[in-house]
């Protein structure tokens, strides 16, 4: 079947199977940044934004997304780059495999709640597993990034 997606702001039409998941469809569209981590909706590595909301692309049927907006890290490159500088400062980036997914979740959090507490960050991002970092430096980087973005917003 054919579906229409708005992928990072660009309207596209893709041929899919009815049982196909978005993670597979996005590969067909040459998006490599959406990666597989588990097969059970637990790890968060394949996170994308569907109409601005973080969802696991391994568990959303592509047919469900027909006529919806999909954002991958390429669609928020500016914010991702900024977030990465805060990760760099805190040494929060290690293997990086989960980082595009994490950045998308942070972006969605920022839109939903620009001034989260550390506890709210944990609650929002709990589904983004990380085996490298120990999490704490990530949180420091995310807090600093959000504070900076909020400051820019006010100006």
């Amino acid at each position, binding site marked *: 079947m054919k579906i229409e997606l708005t992928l990072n702001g660009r309207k596209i039409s893709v041929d899919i199977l009815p049982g196909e998941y978005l993670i597979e469809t996005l590969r067909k569209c040459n998006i*490599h940044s959406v990666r597989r981590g588990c097969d059970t909706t637990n790890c968060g590595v394949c996170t994308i934004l569907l109409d601005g909301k973080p969802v696991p692309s391994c568990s959303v049927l592509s047919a469900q997304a027909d006529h919806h907006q999909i954002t991958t890290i390429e669609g928020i490159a500016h914010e991702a780059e900024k977030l990465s500088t805060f990760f760099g400062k805190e040494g929060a980036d290690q*293997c990086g495999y989960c980082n595009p997914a994490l950045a998308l979740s942070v972006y969605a959090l920022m839109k939903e709640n620009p001034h989260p507490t550390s506890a709210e960050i944990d609650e929002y991002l709990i589904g*983004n*597993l990380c085996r490298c970092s120990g999490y704490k430096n990530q949180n420091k980087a995310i807090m600093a990034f959000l504070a900076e973005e909020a400051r820019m917003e006010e100006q």
Partner: protein
Amino acid sequence: MKVVNQKIPSIDGKSLMMGRIAYSDDFADSDSLVIKVLRSPHPFAKIVAIDVSSASTLPGVEIVLTYADFNRIPFTRAGQGYPEPSPHDKFVLDEYVRYIGDEVAIVAAVDEATAKQALKLINVEYQVMEPILDFETAYNNPIVLHPEPEIHEMFPIGFDPKKNVAAEYHMEIGDIETALKQCDVVVNETYYTQAQAHAMMEPHSCNARFDHLNRLVIYSSTQTPFHIRRIISQALEFPISRIRVIKPRVGGGFGGKQAVHGELIAASVTIRTGKPSKLVYTRKEVFESSYTRHPMRFDMRLGAMKDGTLKAIDCQVLSDTGAYGEHALTVFMVAGSKVLPLYNKVDSVRFGGKVVYTNHTPAGAFRGYGAIQGNFALESVIDVLCHKLQIDPVVFRQKNMMKEGESSPIFAIMGEGTEGTAMTMDTCKLDYCVKRGMELIGWKTKYPRQVISEDLVRGVGMAIAMQGSGIPLIDMGSAIIKLNDGGFYNLLVGATDIGQKSDTILAQICAEELETTIDKIIVTSSDTDLTPFDTGAYASSTTYVSGNAVVNAAKAMKLLLIEEAAKILKINKDKIIFDGSSFSDSEGKIKISLADLSNRLYYNENQKQLATTGSFVGHKSPPPFMAGFAEVEIDIKTGETSVINYVSVVDCGTTINPKLAQGQVEGGIVQGIGMALYEEVNVAKSGKLITNSFLSYKIPTRLEIKNLVTEFADSYEESGPFGAKSVAEIGIDTPPAAIMNAIYNAIGVRINVLPATPEKIWMGINKKEKKL
């Protein structure tokens, strides 16, 4: 120091966050055959017949391979120096399958769906055999798991497959029985550790193709590209000169990728079909069919005098290597060699045991590599002894532990598969680490417990640990530095960045030595064609071993540069002053910039390429040390427990990059907390791993991790690059013991079998209440 010991952002972090092409599967050819592996449903069986005709003829299937398609060449998948201290007991495919998940057949097809469908069409007739699923019954069991005649050890490691023994080792310093007899107090405890899963976020992934020179090019998410090249050549009888292994970015390894996993399979498919192929493990395959940590049993005996002098340590180990003996001997030996020297003043220490085969998922390398298992046993039993002696466990450790300038006879006796290397502790800031850790956790006010409410009790506990910095006389690293026109450098290293950010660390070391900035150092790593040899990312070796190689290459480059500058400036090279960007005489009157020098060298006069090579092999392995302090909060009605504070004070010498070093320590701490409290491994009676997904196998989430405090001791290891020792593994060692000690201090319940789940703690509380 301008670059080293600075919090410099990693050189690849930005690209990775922006989702650039970086990991193995991103490099797979778009027309790759997709490989799927048929895996054994039985823990132990012989393949009586295997019919692949329906699968082979399914449209879209390119090739189906079974054991009959391979020459019988035993090898080990362990990515270790050659000859390996692991038995050669594995075949690419074998007529025996030895665990649920073992490889039976290989299918390569045009797409995943076709490959999966073909798997279902393979008919296998198994002769199902009784497995060994309890490692305590494996030794000398009438069931023999490895009866095949071709398998062998490379040098004596105690390999005795007829008795299901993959490796065995014993040593004794002094006379343990006499020493124990002379002690006022003797304690005797048994501990068990579980088959922890690495759970790196990127599943094992590799892909292969032939290039324009008809050479086999493999991208792999591996920790050991050079070992992969060697093992492929040996196991597939394919010329090593025709193999190129490239390790791109890797999404975490932690030891789980210190082995050949899918590479032999993808290589076989591409060699036989001539077509590109790729194999990406499912998460289930990562859990069931890669590696786990070696589960171990420890029988510990300690003897001490009433005044708190530790006199004797007896540590007897039984280790479960699962179906194959990868890293069997060495992980088990590290449980002694990187643990027991912590208490170096004893009269006698004995260590020994066996590593047995079972029908479990094979065990292999995992961060900590035996040390975490041994540390849990020793640092737990030390606390048991302290309570019997009624001595504060911190005071006891301060009295008995290793100090700077001291040594332990164990270093000379125990190596990794061979004899060890004698060394004294030129840097050992354990004293400081313990003292500072006490302050940071608030030991004096919090030890042993604080009652928070009717239901909540808090306790503190601690443990000390050591690790190594590479394997002396075995682990080798090398580096090539090439000067470019425009005055910047290429740094080519075999060292393997698997997410620990070693490319950044090595660039910092290189920039520091060449007195330049990190943007002038372009790192290329882990390509067996382009970069010089390196044993790989394991044994906490990269900073110390590969880092020293970079220092050597950079020193040579500096000499070369000064020589060339002297020729051009026509002054004696001893008079040249090089500040990293220009050369001048002592008055600064005659001058040439590095950029001009390089441009002249390549375009104008006496043209030549400047390049230097540096190598390093350690003659010792200076251990990093740390003290870990845990504060736990326990609901005494339910056993629910959380670590509300974890304090780490680490002596890893100079931190090349303090933030990245902190990341290494905290990442290790959290994996250690996982092993201590959450990462329960369940195996069904059938031998099937139940905890084979992230739904059932629980690693800590960000909500489990409350507060981490990490500090580094002021320390400078003369033999290390700019004073550095290693920092990759030391973080993981202390949490199991420190947390169990904290739980005991809080509620008087001692958990000897990891992990300490709430139910186990609840049962302990109940048992204790019944006794009262």
